[in-house]
């Protein structure tokens, strides 16, 4: 809290304006503060973004299920056959309308997310052997426009940090230093689906994955603390990415269409549970991240490329020259390195208030010390 109080943009009134000043002097300060903030916000197009979001909201078409009219007409007809047909038709309409509405809601949420401002999401994980979701978030995900920052409490006790800024994706090496060549290895496995990071591109990307990987239906809306939320349930499609959850439920703010909460559930099945129990990824194809010579390319006519054969054993028998590869600066001990605490049963992504972060918050240099660090 003391850090928050230090920001010129978020102090208590008695700190924020001169406490000894008269009311009109304080009003002057508050006016200038507002005007200065508005002036300096111009550079990042904040007003345009807000207006775009507003236009989407007020131009959102009213949701009148037109098919209900057809259903009402059908009800006027009599006879057992008609009743039966009407029943079947009702069922089809219900499923179809619900699915379409769910997809439309999700698409609207994706669109709203692209124009939303700074957002922060916390990730809580319930693992095997745990009864309750830990109060402490496993990770925190910040986004502002195209900029991203993911901070993860790695099981080995350190903080894994990765993000994206105007230059591109980056990660902080565990031994220190910034990795820009192959930063995706820093992403925790729960944030990926078959090796493809689904959080790496943002929460919006994750929502896009949902539209293709899940059968979506709309659930009854919920009102919490006076706020109305649209709810969507998704059940994994056959053949969808193996790492995806079996079931997902979303809460979308009905007013802003911004994703407020998402729960992913992995249903227990023998031999398969959650993204953490998938086999390890094959060794990286990219050059080693540490200084040193690059490996020789495979000879022509040699073995098939990696990915079509099992990864080589770590210590092949009878090879006196074998030396284990150097530890990967990101994966070694990182969140991808091993099972965290067994399989994941539930993953909860929930929106929380984004603090006012410093201008360099999404730059790797601001996190190079590898500490959690809060603005």
């Amino acid at each position: 809290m003391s850090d928050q109080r230090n920001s010129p943009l978020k102090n208590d009134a008695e700190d924020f304006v001169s406490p000894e000043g008269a009311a009109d002097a304080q009003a002057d300060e508050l006016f200038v503060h507002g005007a200065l903030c508005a002036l300096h916000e111009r550079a990042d197009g904040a007003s345009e973004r807000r207006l775009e979001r507003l236009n989407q909201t007020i131009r959102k078409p009213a949701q009148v299920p037109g098919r209900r009219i057809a259903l009402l007409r059908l009800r006027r007809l009599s006879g057992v056959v008609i009743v039966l047909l009407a029943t079947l038709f009702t069922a089809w309409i219900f499923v179809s309308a619900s699915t379409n509405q769910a997809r439309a809601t999700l698409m609207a949420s994706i669109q709203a997310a692209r124009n939303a401002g700074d957002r922060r999401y916390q990730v809580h994980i319930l693992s095997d052997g745990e009864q309750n979701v830990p109060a402490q978030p496993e990770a925190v995900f910040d986004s502002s426009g195209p900029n991203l920052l993911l901070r993860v409490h790695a099981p080995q006790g350190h903080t894994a940090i990765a993000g994206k800024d105007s230059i591109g994706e980056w990660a902080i090496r565990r031994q220190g230093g910034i990795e820009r060549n192959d930063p995706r290895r820093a992403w925790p496995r729960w944030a990926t689906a078959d090796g493809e990071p689904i959080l790496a591109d943002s929460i919006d990307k994750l929502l896009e994955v949902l539209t293709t990987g899940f059968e979506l239906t709309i659930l009854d809306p919920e009102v919490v603390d006076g706020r109305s939320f649209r709810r969507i349930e998704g059940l994994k499609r056959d053949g969808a990415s193996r790492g995806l959850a079996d079931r997902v439920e979303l809460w979308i703010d009905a007013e802003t269409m911004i994703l407020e909460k998402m729960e992913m559930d992995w249903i227990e099945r023998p031999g398969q549970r959650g993204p953490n129990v998938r086999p390890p990824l094959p060794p990286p194809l990219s050059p080693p991240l540490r200084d040193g010579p690059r490996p020789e390319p495979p000879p022509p006519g040699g073995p098939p490329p990696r990915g079509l054969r099992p990864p080589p054993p770590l210590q092949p028998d009878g090879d006196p020259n074998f030396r284990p590869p150097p530890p990967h600066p990101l994966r070694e001990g990182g969140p991808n390195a091993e099972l965290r605490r067994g399989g994941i049963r539930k993953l909860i992504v929930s929106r929380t208030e984004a603090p006012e972060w410093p201008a360099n918050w999404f730059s790797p240099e601001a996190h190079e010390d590898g500490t959690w660090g809060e603005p």
Partner: protein
Amino acid sequence: MPQQSHEDSLTEFEQLARLHAEMLSAYLRSLLGSVRGGLGGSRSLLDDLFQEVMVVAWRRMKDFDRSRPFDAWLRGIARNLVLEQSRKKSIRLASIDPRTLDLVDARYDAFAASLQPSSTFADGIDRLLRCLAELPSGMREVMELAYARGMMLKQVASSLGLEEETVKKRVQRSRGTLAECLRKQEAVS
């Protein structure tokens, strides 16, 4: 008087919203600058409040008396909404004197009155750039780091080798000086 079509009403409202967007953002910042705790400076809170105020305004547009200024009406909605949220404890206002809030409103009214008929709030606050340029270098430097670069007071203090308390006081004094400068410019215009 012929009734406006829905599309015409939307277009009219969008134009008004565009004209007054920057004023509303500034006004919300002025109110949130007095918010206790960590929410005051949050941009997402500001975005949400902006959205809420504008949506309420759009819904109540039929009640808007067109003989009165739209910006003052919008600020009225914003103030009520912020106070209502503060009562619900979704945001926490400091124990600020309601009179100060009235005076903040009065400052916005006076500023709007000083503008040329064809000018907007956004045009008007460009005057601040001139006022900033006239600040003594020590003040200007602090304001540049705190507002333009978004640094925290602690960071400003560290980068300038100053005590944090000194930086805080300097920011407060600078805001006062800027307000005075703006007032002079308003009088001239």
